[in-house]
């Protein structure tokens, strides 16, 4: 079964890992070399991805690696986003102090991601997954001392989730063993090889089955950033470098987390649409959407706000996957892709703004629209896309998720009403918070709190990626049949089945988009006809006849929703949130500190105590895991 295509998989893993090492050891004097390394790696990987993409329906196998339509799709976009971010990184990182490390970690991340995508062997999967956590920590930490707390938090949460993963995989391993094999070590060893296979379609029942499902899904949630293990995403989004934020929490971690969740729902476990597991997933999804977007609404830092959106959008993907019907799953996966596109664009735009203005605090910014036209237009498109405004890509995938949810409703039950409502309302809240961002940063009265004279558009390395991404937002929204049929259909069902669903009879986005464009062109023509656009008479702002003093008389976006923040119930929730009551990390760090202080008493420093501890542990281990009870 071995053919040349199969070799792409190990290559995709090993190549970036090795070139990453190269990037570290290249002396930092030779500036071009390491960038060259990155380029070469990415190009070769892209070639590989294309190679895989032309054979999407082939199942490839190589050792513990396996690939199918979905894996190819995820891999292709992993490399794609890596390439886009790399272009951006040339504009920012090459001058940075620890650029060697950055590019090394960047490449390692790609390699490890490829490993996660392709491996079906538990050990392989686990090690790549764990390695990704490490590179994530390192990359966030690169932003300097201010990011160290965020990096630590990320490390602890994803690390904790890795513990869940180990436990979950162990249980899955036990379940995978043939019926009688729990008896003895020998039987275990002989069956271990096949039991290590991740894709085993276990039912979600029995203690181990349920626990393993919960633990594995929690791992996926922590990676993608869904409730309750989402709290590292906003911190990382705010503190890490823009490239890191756009690449890791913005796009790659979504791809991987949702990829893993999709595997959990289809390959690792199998459960029916009426299972409790669906309700559990849906509830997590709906809760994620609403709570994260409500928090985003009150944020004052542009990237922290984006971080909360990165969380909120995961809810749609989870909802889509949990529908377990082709439309919903396609919607979930498409949303994952779309989210990666516009979220990277948004993070990179935020990076541009921060770089140009020197701050990401919404209160200080204002009136950058005229100074940074490319960034502002890209950000507007991405913001409208994330809010699900037709005819942009976010709308299409949300629409598919809605249709999937409605289809589950057809099968019975009334809970879907709540999920659908959460999704639709979350969409409006998203729009609201992006109106706030766009107003604060680009549109409002020119700010006097920063020096606007020095601000100008950033270099092409930094505008090109966002323009590309914004362009894709439009293309995927208008010609959405293309990505759906090319990338997602092979992953969800066979293409024929998918086409037979006749998804698009009711909404011809291309026509609609053409008509929208037509209307706008007609408008431009009208403007031209009636007023030469250049000679518009410029007049002072009218505030009722008094002189408008932009220094004092302005209404920033941060003030937009005070009415809502200050409503009695919400007010309380927000104040509790600010104190960290809803942050697992904060809760557990308090808890674990108190427990740790308890344990530290047992650290006497005497060797015999430790030996005793070790012995007790060994005995417990033997009892529990070796079936000696």
């Amino acid at each position, binding site marked *: 079964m071995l053919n040349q295509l199969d070799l792409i998989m190990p290559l995709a893993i090993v190549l970036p890992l090795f070139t990453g090492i190269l990037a570290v050891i290249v002396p930092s004097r030779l500036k071009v070399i390491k960038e060259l390394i990155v380029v070469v790696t990415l190009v070769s990987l892209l070639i590989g991805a294309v190679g895989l993409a032309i054979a999407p329906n082939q199942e490839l196998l190589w050792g513990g690696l396996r690939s199918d339509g979905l894996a190819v799709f995820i891999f292709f976009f992993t490399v794609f986003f890596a390439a886009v971010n790399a272009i951006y990184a040339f504009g920012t990182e090459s001058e940075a102090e620890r650029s060697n490390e950055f590019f090394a970690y960047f490449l390692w991340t790609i390699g490890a991601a490829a490993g996660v995508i392709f491996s079906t062997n538990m050990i392989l999967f686990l090690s790549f997954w764990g390695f990704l956590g490490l590179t994530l920590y390192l990359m966030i930490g690169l932003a300097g001392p201010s990011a160290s707390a965020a990096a630590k938090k990320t490390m602890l949460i994803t690390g904790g989730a890795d513990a869940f993963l180990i436990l979950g995989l162990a249980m899955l391993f036990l379940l995978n063993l043939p019926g009688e094999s729990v008896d003895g070590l020998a039987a275990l060893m002989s069956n271990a090889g096949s039991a290590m296979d991740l894709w085993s379609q276990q039912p979600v029942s029995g203690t181990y089955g349920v626990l393993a499902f919960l633990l594995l899904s929690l791992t996926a949630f922590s990676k993608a950033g869904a409730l309750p293990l989402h709290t590292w995403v906003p911190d990382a989004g705010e503190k890490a470098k823009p490239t890191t934020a756009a690449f890791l929490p913005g796009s790659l971690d979504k791809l991987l987390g949702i990829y893993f969740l999709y595997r959990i729902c289809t390959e690792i476990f199998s459960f029916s649409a009426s299972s409790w597991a669906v309700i559990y997933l849906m509830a997590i999804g709906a809760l994620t959407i609403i709570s994260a977007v409500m928090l985003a609404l009150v944020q004052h830092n542009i990237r922290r706000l984006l971080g909360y959106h990165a969380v909120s959008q995961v809810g749609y993907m989870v909802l889509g996957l949990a529908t377990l019907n082709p439309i919903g799953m396609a919607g979930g996966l498409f949303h994952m892709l779309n989210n990666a596109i516009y979220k990277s664009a948004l993070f990179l735009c935020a990076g541009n703004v921060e770089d140009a203005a020197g701050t990401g605090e919404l209160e200080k910014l204002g009136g950058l629209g005229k100074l940074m036209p490319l960034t502002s237009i890209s950000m507007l498109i991405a913001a409208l896309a994330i809010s699900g405004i037709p005819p942009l890509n976010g709308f299409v995938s949300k629409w598919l998720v809605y249709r999937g949810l409605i289809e589950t409703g057809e099968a019975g039950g009334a809970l879907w009403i709540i999920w659908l409502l959460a999704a639709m309302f979350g969409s409006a809240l998203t729009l609201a918070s992006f109106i706030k961002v766009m107003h604060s940063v680009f549109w409002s009265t020119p700010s006097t709190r920063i020096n606007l004279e020095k601000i100008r558009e950033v270099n092409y390395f930094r505008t090109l990626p966002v323009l590309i991404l914004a362009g894709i937002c439009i293309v995927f929204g208008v010609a959405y049949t293309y990505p759906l049929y090319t990338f997602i259909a092979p992953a969800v069902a066979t293409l024929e089945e998918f086409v037979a669903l006749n998804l698009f009879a009711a909404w011809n986005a291309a026509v609609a988009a053409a008509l929208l464009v037509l209307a706008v062109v007609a408008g431009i023509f009208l403007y031209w006809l*009636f007023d030469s656009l250049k000679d518009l*008479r410029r*007049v*002072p702002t*009218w505030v009722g*006849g*008094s002189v408008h003093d932009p220094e004092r008389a302005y209404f920033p976006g941060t003030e937009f929703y005070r009415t809502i923040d200050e409503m009695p119930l919400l007010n309380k929730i927000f104040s509790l949130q600010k104190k960290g009551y809803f942050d697992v990390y904060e809760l557990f760090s308090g808890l674990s500190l108190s427990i740790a202080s308890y344990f530290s008493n047992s650290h006497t420093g005497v060797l015999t105590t430790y030996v005793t501890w070790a012995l007790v542990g060994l005995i417990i281990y033997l009892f529990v895991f070796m079936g000696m009870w």
Partner: protein
Amino acid sequence: MNWKERLARWGIKRSPWVYHVNTGACNNCDIEILDVLCPRFDAERFGIKLVGTPRHADVLLVSGPVTRHTEQPLRDAYEATPKPCAVVAFGACGCSSGIFKDGLNVNGTVDRVIREEDPEAIITYVPGCPPRPEAIISAAVKTLEAL
């Protein structure tokens, strides 16, 4: 006069939107202006509508002697009005500063201020203290004819 301006003038005659500028009037003119919109006289029959910002206005209705503090706002309001537009100097004070013309704080008549801003401005006069609603409607008709 290009075709666009002709279009606007044609339209203004049928739908004059009025922005009311008080440059120190005693309220009576202002009340009578509102009164004209009310059921007994109903100026909406002629498409007359009061608007909240000069950007939407076609007619600036200026009542009052122009006091020192309202002169600049009046100029600003005229600048803020898209052209073509008409200015109505309303009431005795608007036309001639009326009884207040010797006031220390009164800077001069409406037409002087507007002419300084734009010598070509269309200005009409509605005398009276205050003009009766019937007079206002007749003046409105005359103003629109002047366009």
